[in-house]
């Protein structure tokens, strides 16, 4: 059945994320999107709609100031303010499901059991997939989170897997030392995709007042500054797992999105860039279209993992270099 909001051009921008088919690979990153963006974007033209993480427990979020800018990026310590799942289902979710675009609910929770129960609760017919935010810097533990290690990742995702038939995406953190192993644990525990990645824990100080720039002292770094880190991790995950990888971190242009796809992403999430231009996601989609036309690419999804690696290069270099004294 043809998607009536599908781009009518010759190029096929559709991508697969497990069993889900998205009309294009561009979706918002959780926490950097809310229904208000319908004022700036046609939500029927995005690949998916990812909602701000919700936690089953009611939470106030972190002290203000909650944002600070850095070179080529920003720090945030919003936390996950939440009025609980009941409020979420009754008042937050409905406007998103009014569109013809798959809705992804992001869950944040403190324990594996809480995660599982929350995911079960949002496994509604109108929800296309559940993103488990096992990566949000848990600041009480100095930045530690489930996705910091393969074991805790496995525990959280398998608990969730037992409680839902919905596609589960595991959102990993770039603060982990070995993301490939973490991605593998998520895959083994039954995740349908991994989202790589979240913000990198950072800090900034005002040298005049000598105070931290964030009320919460530390916070997550996002934006173009972290793009090379996220891209590297997407590539590492792509090499480590068979499930799709969704790239996230610093994407602001169609070129950035293409770089992530070449590195191994099946789809991409756009976060901070929307704060600079709320219409940026549509511009990225248009740019992907234009690139495919220029380069004669019929199906955008063929680019996933298509980076050209020359596996013998280093060997050849070393042989070449051996000639040197």
């Amino acid at each position, binding site marked *: 059945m043809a998607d009536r909001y599908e781009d009518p051009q010759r190029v096929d921008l559709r991508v697969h994320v497990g069993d889900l088919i998205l009309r294009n690979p561009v979706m918002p990153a959780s926490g950097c999107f809310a229904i*208000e963006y319908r*004022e700036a974007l046609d939500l029927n033209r995005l690949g998916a709609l990812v909602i701000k993480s919700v936690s089953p427990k009611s939470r106030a979020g972190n002290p203000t100031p909650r*944002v600070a*800018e850095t070179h080529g990026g920003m720090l*945030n310590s919003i936390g996950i303010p939440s009025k609980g799942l009941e409020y979420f289902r009754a*008042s937050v979710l409905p406007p998103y499901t009014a569109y013809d675009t798959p809705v992804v609910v992001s869950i944040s929770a403190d324990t594996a059991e809480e995660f599982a129960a929350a995911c079960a609760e949002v496994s509604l017919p109108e929800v296309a997939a559940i993103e488990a935010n096992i990566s949000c810097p848990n600041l009480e533990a100095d930045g530690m989170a489930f996705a910091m290690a393969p074991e805790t990742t496995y525990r959280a995702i398998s608990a969730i897997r037992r409680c839902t038939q919905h596609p589960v995406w595991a959102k990993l953190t770039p603060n982990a030392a070995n993301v490939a192993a973490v991605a593998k644990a998520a895959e083994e525990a039954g995740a349908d995709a991994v989202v790589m990645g979240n913000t990198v824990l950072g800090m900034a100080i005002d040298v005049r007042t000598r105070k931290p720039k964030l009320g919460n002292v530390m916070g997550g770094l996002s934006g173009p500054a972290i793009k090379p880190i996220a891209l590297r991790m997407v590539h590492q995950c792509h090499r480590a797992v068979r499930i799709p990888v969704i790239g996230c971190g610093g994407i602001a242009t169609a070129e950035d999105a293409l770089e992530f796809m070449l590195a191994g992403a099946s789809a991409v999430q756009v976060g*901070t860039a929307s*704060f600079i231009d*709320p*219409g940026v996601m549509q511009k990225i989609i248009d740019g992907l279209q234009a690139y495919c036309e220029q380069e004669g690419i019929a199906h955008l999804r063929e680019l996933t993992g298509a980076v050209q690696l020359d596996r013998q290069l280093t060997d050849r270099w070393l042989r070449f270099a051996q000639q040197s004294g």
Partner: protein
Amino acid sequence: MNAIVCEPAVATNAGCAARVASYHCEVMEHRWVNARYKYLRLHAQAPLARITRCGQFYQLRCPVSERQQPFLLRPMSVYGTGPEEGTIEFLYNVTGVGTRALAELPVGGTMEIVGPLGNTFGFDPAYQRILVVARGVGLATMAPLVREAGNNGVAVTALMSARSPADLMREEFLRGVEAQVHSVYDSDGSSAVERIEILLRELIETQALQAVYTCGSHRLLMLLQRVLADYPGIRGEVAMEQRMACGMGVCLSCVRLFDCGKEKGGKQDMQFLRVCREGPVFPISTVVGEVEFG
């Protein structure tokens, strides 16, 4: 989109038809009005004057230079619009990275602005007289309100507070609208809270005020809250500031706590509201006077 605070967010936004966009603007005029403030007039190929309302703000993409590389956009109240459809004005204080970069933008240069954003002042053309209490940059935010009052034949009393007469920017505030102006200064002690309180109460008692608006001073805001508590019939509104990222209600960085009155159970109903979305204009009575959080 008036300052009717404490409705659930969903209801506030439902069916909202306003369009927010990034507008490419040309700099038509850009000059210092005093040692710290600059006036900026932009022009876009879009009917900004028509779509922008009194009290709203835009987020400015300050230019990037070798020395200043602002990343986030900067929220700025609309100081004025028109007479051309595409014309919009700002009046800003040159303080940090972004506004210093902005100050270097040449006439003829271009910049992006995102908006219109936020709610508007609650103003009724049938009012007889309003009081505006301004300090510093607050006058940029309330200037459109003064103009609207002028256009509608509503009398204006202005209480202007400044460090010294050189900082007052009286002409910049009134822009030709007739008003009864009371100026107070730090330099001669006339801006002391006790003295302003006496003046305020006198104005309220003697003038048939329907509404009081303020912006730019926490101290004056707290004073007004106290004084207006005695006059529940007078509308009192304030335009607030907070650090922002998205400016559209999405990121939850710009929250402040507000006291939305008694719930049915008798408990105070306190809510975190987004300055960029439920605000920037709030009823003065709802402001929680905390100062210890940034």
